[in-house]
């Protein structure tokens, strides 16, 4: 009775909110622990790959992203075309860009009635999308600093449209979309289980 056949070949159980709640409670701490353990490695990857993404928008490649030696959560933005005293432009907390992975992992693993293999497969796709999203966040973080935070230099090198584009883009990506990203991915994979496909639109 509690099982229904979905479009795929596997048979899946109906959505149960109680079981989902239990799943959330069970998944949250292990996911957070894995995220904490992998954070230094992922920070290094994001800083390295993010630098390459920033280079796609500049010629010559003057931006450098350097992991902080004092605090592994931070990275420095540097520009090789600035005078040596100002070469280190600013720093940002890399960990802040990807803590939404905890929410993503918890939501994906907590879904009841889905075979584990399918859950992990879906989580894999969600994580892959998250990596691209985080790289986009790095790009917008760096360009936001260049376009709006460097006073006269920003005004000389970025027009009004560019300043607004990078400013608003960073604001939207860094707050609402970063926080909503796990939910968007979850909904993309599991909204059907809440019956959205069978409800007549109001």
């Amino acid at each position, binding site marked *: 009775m509690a099982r*229904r056949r979905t479009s795929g070949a596997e048979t899946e159980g109906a959505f149960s909110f109680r079981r989902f709640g239990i799943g959330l409670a069970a998944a949250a701490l292990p996911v957070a622990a894995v995220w904490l353990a992998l954070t230094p490695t992922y920070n290094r990857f994001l800083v390295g790959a993010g630098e390459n993404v920033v280079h796609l928008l500049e010629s010559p490649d003057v931006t450098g992203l350097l992991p902080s030696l004092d605090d592994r959560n931070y990275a420095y933005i540097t520009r090789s075309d600035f005078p040596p005293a100002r070469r280190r432009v600013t720093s940002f907390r890399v960990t802040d860009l990807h803590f939404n992975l*905890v929410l993503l992992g918890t939501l994906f693993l907590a879904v009841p009635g889905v075979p584990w293999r399918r859950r992990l497969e879906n989580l894999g796709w969600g994580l892959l999308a998250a990596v691209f999203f985080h790289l986009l966040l790095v790009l917008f973080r760096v360009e936001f600093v260049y376009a709006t935070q460097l006073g006269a230099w920003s005004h000389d090198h970025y027009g009004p449209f560019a300043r607004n584009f990078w400013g608003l883009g960073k604001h939207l990506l860094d707050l609402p979309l970063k926080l909503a990203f796990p939910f968007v991915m979850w909904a993309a994979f599991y909204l059907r289980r809440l019956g*959205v496909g069978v409800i007549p639109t109001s």
Partner: protein
Amino acid sequence: MAKKTTEGEATEARERRSWGREVRFLALFVGLLAAAFTFISWTPVNDRVIEPFTAGIARASGVTLDLLGQDVEMRGTVIESPRFAVNIRNGCNGVEAMLIFLSAVLAFPAPWRSRALGLLLGVAVIQLVNLLRVVALFLTGAYFPSWFDTSHTVVWQTVVILSGVVLWIFWADRLARPRSAAPAAS
């Protein structure tokens, strides 16, 4: 053979229609969310609505901290005591979680009555969780300052957003649909 193909095509068409609703939900959700955040970022809205709202949250948090025996004073969006001070700013006022919840409720196909109920419930629960966050963060800053950064940006942001998402899933699963529209079990 010809009948099978027709049945297969019909199933495929049903699948496409069903995925179309999911795509519509996600597009509406992201569109509403981006529009809502752009709107509240507009200086007049920020100054006349968001800042007073944030000051109200600071006052409620200050009163709660007072009840917990903390010697706090409030100035606008700032709560301070001899041990610690915090400035409640955008990102700490629960507005983000509320707008995520609101966008998801409006994007989901449901009767307006269910949506209104969901919005009332959501705003109340999210603000309650946010009050807990501000109070807990203040106490963390006052007594465990080395944990403040992680607690501020990682732990409590995750908790507040998770509470909004879970609340929405509860609403969509239990309150949003007429019972007759529930997916058929076989």
